[in-house]
């Protein structure tokens, strides 16, 4: 115990760094933590978030909803860019019952990535809807599992019912360069959305 254990923790070195939060969504088991780990400079960490929900179970005898709290583990990683930016990548829990937590995670986020699996297209619907409703810019990254069928982008765009401007890319969540490409695509898209707007 004591301070020796904290000495090995990689600190944010720059005193002028700007942090940026990105949310990585997708169904349970789609590879979100693998995706984060591929670019993170730290071993992905896990922290507890508390979700408050109102259960509406059929066994509620008095018909009043019961407030319950659930602790959900959030995995995240960190990537320091040479331009004095520290990216934090948060994995949004994929189980449908934890979706309210995605709304909390989007607060203060710059953008999102929906990691998808062509064997379970529908597994991405919930988080896509969540991002769209919040107006969070996002890209869909199709994780190329070896056994997953391959479709062309227009088929996938239809299947996900994506807005025309939402980028869709294929990726390998284990590969650093591939994940970097996904993040670059996201930032380019946000820039492209920004430029046409008249500035003051």
């Amino acid at each position: 115990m004591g301070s020796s254990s904290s000495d090995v923790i990689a600190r944010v070195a720059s005193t002028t760094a700007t942090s940026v939060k990105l949310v990585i969504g997708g169904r349970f088991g789609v590879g979100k933590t693998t995706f984060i780990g591929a670019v993170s400079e730290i071993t992905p960490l896990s922290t507890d978030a508390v979700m408050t929900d109102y259960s509406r179970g059929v066994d509620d005898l008095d018909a009043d909803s019961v407030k319950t709290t659930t602790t959900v583990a959030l995995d995240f990683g960190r990537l320091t860019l040479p331009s004095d930016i520290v990216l934090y990548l948060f994995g949004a829990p994929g189980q449908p019952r934890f979706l309210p937590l995605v709304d909390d995670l989007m607060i203060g986020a710059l953008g999102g990535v929906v990691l998808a699996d062509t064997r379970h297209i529908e597994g991405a619907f919930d988080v896509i809807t969540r991002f769209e409703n919040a107006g969070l810019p996002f890209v869909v990254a199709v994780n190329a599992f070896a056994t997953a069928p391959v479709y062309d982008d227009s088929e996938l765009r239809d299947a996900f019912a994506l807005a025309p401007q939402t980028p869709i890319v294929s990726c390998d969540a284990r590969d650093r360069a591939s994940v970097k490409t996904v993040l670059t695509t996201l930032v380019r898209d946000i820039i492209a959305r920004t430029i046409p707007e008249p500035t003051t």
Partner: protein
Amino acid sequence: MPARLRTGLVRSHTPTGGRADPARSSLNESTLLYPDLTVERAGLPGKTQQVMEFLAPGALAVAEVAAYLRLPLAVVKVLAADLITSGHIVSRTPVPAEQQHDCDLLERILHGLEQL
């Protein structure tokens, strides 16, 4: 001194003095917390002191403090807000989506990614 039960667990509202909401709603998971070591740390209450001592070697984000100290995120937000109010911590809030029209910053992110 009476024997203490050492379960390693504490009811989550205890370290925050029973307050549920962070004093600073601007704090989020990726807010960077920079310690100001010129401010006297002796006498800070329990968990607040723990957070401050943990941060003393250098800055980390709220989520990192929570993960390393094994405290719920909500608790760390409250403790960090107190330390900001008392001047022990200076925070740098992440760039939210509402500020994404800052092209300079977006270009910095893009160029940073490309330089990796």
